[in-house]
């Protein structure tokens, strides 16, 4: 048994399924929920919301800023070439480079955080049903303990319009 899940036509029924699975003793991280759109109107849509992405973005920005500062500093100090009487370390113009690299760092850090924490599939979390695309909301349990499959099926079948499948 790889997984047991139910497909629900509406957010309300999916919320019921989630609630019942919780009642069956599953923790939030053991429940798999898939939807074709963000489900912020429902409680289950807010599961696993906490993220350090903002902090990583700031960190990326700091790294970018340091690179920008270092690149312009090292370049101008390594080749102390006089151009137009500007100082060798001309910090006003260099602020532009530093700014751009700061933003680039922040953007890249954001993306990397997103890909690493959100998109790279965790081991054993591959449950999917193409019907999600057409608006069904999937609620299920991956790799359930065989002895409890029956309880989960019962919990999943309870809400209106549920169609329960097993893999």
């Amino acid at each position, binding site marked *: 048994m790889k997984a047991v899940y139910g497909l629900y036509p509406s*957010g309300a029924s999916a919320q019921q399924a989630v609630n019942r699975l919780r009642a069956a003793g599953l923790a939030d991280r053991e429940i*798999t*929920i*898939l*939807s*074709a*759109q*963000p*489900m*912020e*109107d429902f409680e*289950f*849509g*807010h*599961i*696993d*919301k906490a*993220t350090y*992405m*903002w902090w990583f*973005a700031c960190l990326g920005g700091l790294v970018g800023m340091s690179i920008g500062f270092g*690149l*312009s500093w090292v*370049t*101008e100090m*390594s*080749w102390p*070439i006089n*151009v137009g009487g*500007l100082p060798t370390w*001309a910090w006003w*113009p*260099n602020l*532009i*480079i530093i*700014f*751009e*690299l700061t*933003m*680039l760092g*922040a*953007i*890249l850090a*954001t*993306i990397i*955080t*997103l*890909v690493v*924490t*959100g*998109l*790279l*599939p965790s081991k054993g979390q591959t*449950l*999917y049903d*193409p019907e*999600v*695309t*057409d*608006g069904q909301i999937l609620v299920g349990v991956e790799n359930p303990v065989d002895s409890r499959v029956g309880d989960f099926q019962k919990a999943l079948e309870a809400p209106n319009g549920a169609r329960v499948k097993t893999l």
Partner: protein
Amino acid sequence: MTHPTGSQINRDLLHPLFNTSWRFYLLVAIFGGIVLFGLATWFTQTVNGYGVTGIRWPVYWGFYVTSFVFWIGISHAGTLISAILRLVNAGWRRPVTRCAEVITAFALIIGALFPIIHLGRPWLAFWMFPYPSERLIWPNFRSPLVWDFFAINTYLTGSLLFLYLPIIPDFAIVRDKSTGLRRKIYGALALGWRGTPKQWHRLETAMQIMAIAIIPVAVSVHTIVSFDFSMAPVPTWNTTIFGPYFVAGAIFSGIAGLLIAMAVLRKFLHLEAYLHPLHFENLGKLMLVMALLWGYFVFNERLVTYYGNEPAEMSVYWRTQSGTFAPLFWTMVICNFVLPLILMGIRRFRTITGCVIASIGVVIGMWLERFLIIVPALGHKYLPYSYGIYRPTPPEIIVASSTFAAMALLYVLFAKVVPIISIWELKAGEHPSPELLPPATEEHRLGDLHL
């Protein structure tokens, strides 16, 4: 007006991806042909020498740099507008953002080509990049052109990612709807998207960070483009107003470009149900604001020059006001100010047609604006003996105009492989948050302004 349901949205918006009409091939052939012609012209320019253009002593920048600034300006349509609309959570943005962001990405790619096209030795363009070379020298970070390089680099990276992020769930949809090789490709592009609440949150957080980051980057990009001019002691260039003036102009032309693109998509992809007159009206209002802002900047720039009465600047001033370039100048004023003011200021003209007419005017006007900033000043730089007049030659005109075809080609190809309206965002628009609005019904009208 009925509102399309989720599966209807899928059907409508995925239709162009799975059905190819002869029109698509025709468009690709036409635009592709023009682009190939432009590429061949550029190739002959590179082989024969830069002299095939009309550039001359002392007007060393002409059509290419004008086009560069123009396309970078157009690129401000998308990401900037979309980011602002996202941040203020404007509901009517949902069908608009994707086509806006696409404009940004492609306009930037095209715009970024021009500095290379215009180089005397384009094969050495990579010398702008700081890398350990055998020349043992890195770029001069004090040069505005290097700032350009970094700014465009950041903006292009950011814009491409900003475009890509919200497509990921749509790629997953296409993956689910397709088979075979296409399924594999879209599967790879979807990066394992399943649609868990965590993924949705991460995506939305990332979009928020990107939106916050991309706005200052966009502002900086066009400010830096304006620095290309304002850093040089050329009469009428060396002014402090250029930064905001260029940013305002960029957003102005960007909105115009977006309106044209939206109207074309609506017409040819039959998206009447998704792109409503309201969208055009709202963007039209925004364009009106920008026209007024633009007029304010032009007045400001002209007045300060006039009042300063510095001989070299006045020579350029009169050259555009009543001299050689006066016809172009007044065309610009009509296109950029008079026309949008009439069409966008009067409600009954603020229709889709009105928007498109005004937008075409603004695109022409903004192209002229850049030309009028660059060429007259370079031709009248201080020493009257060295005054000169620039006239473009066919190769320049071909290359510069073929980029419009390139834009169209990229757009057509993009609309062929990616849903041009964000499917999931459109669906999410069906579920307004319950605290604010009653539960979603079929009667709920998409696109009400929730500013």
